[in-house]
């Protein structure tokens, strides 16, 4: 292309210009890509559930039964024991996130997906679950059963 050989200074100059051009282009592409990458990450979901929720009415549940309630964006499990006391746990299995259920015949909590079993305190007693279920506080207020997150001590 060039008729004469580039002198050494010319070559350095050329390198310089190439570096400026390339660097500028690269920087501007980074400025295009950055917003796109940020855009791809979904904003955190605002959990409007709060720390407390009415999970059931007192009159609603028979002894030795359970129901699933909504706690924020996740399901919770409210159990009424045979003696009439209540107990609330996270219903999300610690293994792979299925929703667990109460087995009134076994008086245990069972996950149908991979046969994980927890006791009524949420401890993982058999099967694949690696950790116990989170336990929530339960108290009654009037005719309502209120479930709240355990306060960090």
């Amino acid at each position, binding site marked *: 292309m060039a008729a004469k050989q580039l002198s050494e200074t010319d070559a350095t100059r050329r390198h310089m210009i190439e570096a400026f051009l390339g660097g500028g282009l690269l920087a501007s592409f980074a400025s*295009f890509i950055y*917003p*796109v990458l*940020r*855009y*791809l*990450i*979904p*904003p955190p979901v605002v959990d409007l559930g709060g720390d407390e929720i009415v999970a059931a009415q007192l009159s609603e549940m028979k002894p030795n039964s359970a129901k699933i309630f909504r706690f924020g964006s996740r399901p919770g499990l409210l159990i009424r024991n045979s003696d009439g006391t209540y107990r609330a746990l996270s219903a999300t299995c610690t293994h792979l996130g299925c929703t667990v259920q109460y087995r009134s015949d076994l008086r245990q909590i069972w996950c149908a997906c991979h046969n994980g079993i927890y006791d009524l305190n949420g401890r993982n007693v058999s099967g694949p679950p690696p950790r116990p279920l989170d336990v929530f506080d339960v108290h009654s207020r009037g005719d309502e059963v209120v479930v709240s997150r355990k306060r960090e001590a």
Partner: protein
Amino acid sequence: MFAVLLHWFDERLNWDDLIAPLRHKTVPTHRLSYWYFLGGITLFLFGIQVATGILLLLYYRPGANEAFESVQYIMTQVRFGWLIRSIHSWSANLMIFTAFAHMFSVLFLKAYRKPRELTWVSGMLLLFLVMGFGFSGYLLPWNTLAFFATKVGTEITGQVPIIGKPMMIFLRGGEEVTGATLTRFFGFHVAVLPGIATVLLLVHLLLVQRLGMSVPPKLEAEWMANPSAKQEMKFFPNFLLREMMAWYVGLGVLGVLAAVFPWNLGVKADPFVSAPAGIKPEWYFLFMFQTLKIIPSKLWFIDGEVLGVLVFGLVGFMWILLPFLESEQPSPTKGWITGLAVFALAYVAGMSVYGHLAK
């Protein structure tokens, strides 16, 4: 590293053969060469539309109860969502502008002549398609302006004798503009139109590639008489690099417009609220809108609106066939298409400004 990869592919795909036509392609250089950029810029903006459109699809939800809220969510919650949406809107408008400019430049440079009639036809179809993109995309945020623009636009379709009414019902997905219309327009906008556009675009580009760049007739005659005056540059990489510089500038303009003048979302559409005063379509439909407005309601025995719609339909159709209407042989009336183009440009521009200023 890169060379090794290239060699690997070349060994298998014979890549060099594949891009050989691109290497042989040349672009004539003359004082009007700049007009050759317009098609490429339109293509570039189309690419921006595809990319930002896909990004918007990540969060957009069609449906009368969700569409507005999801766009609001994009603009207020998603990081840089406002930017992506603004770029999509601005780029859409710029693309329609450059597509129109491309069309007029082809007319003025007489690039539609034999053997490029089919390139013109495919280009005109693409232009109509682009307007279809604009019309269908405008409704998707489901705001008041879009709602009424769609109402009026589809109502105009309904004016066409015989086939108008069924067409309107097809477009609206019912008698009225409702959530069903939104669902339909969404489907048109993200599936039907892109599919057709991709095919047409390929045809258009293949034709351009096959037939080479047109040279304005006057210059062509000069070059024919004096072949040594003929000047051209290689398409790859010389012209392409220049073109990419234009794209880069375009991207800069787009970024500035989107950042400094972010696109409004407006107010959520409510079918049971009166149309706000001064309601107008997007600027690229304004010349038709204004024409329909000033036609008397009764002309002789036909409805003014019906006449307007029919005339626009006919003119649009004739416009596609324009290259076939010009005689090949030189004749005293040969310049009529240029005259027509001047008139059309003046009419569209004048009516748009009039429509913009009119109350």
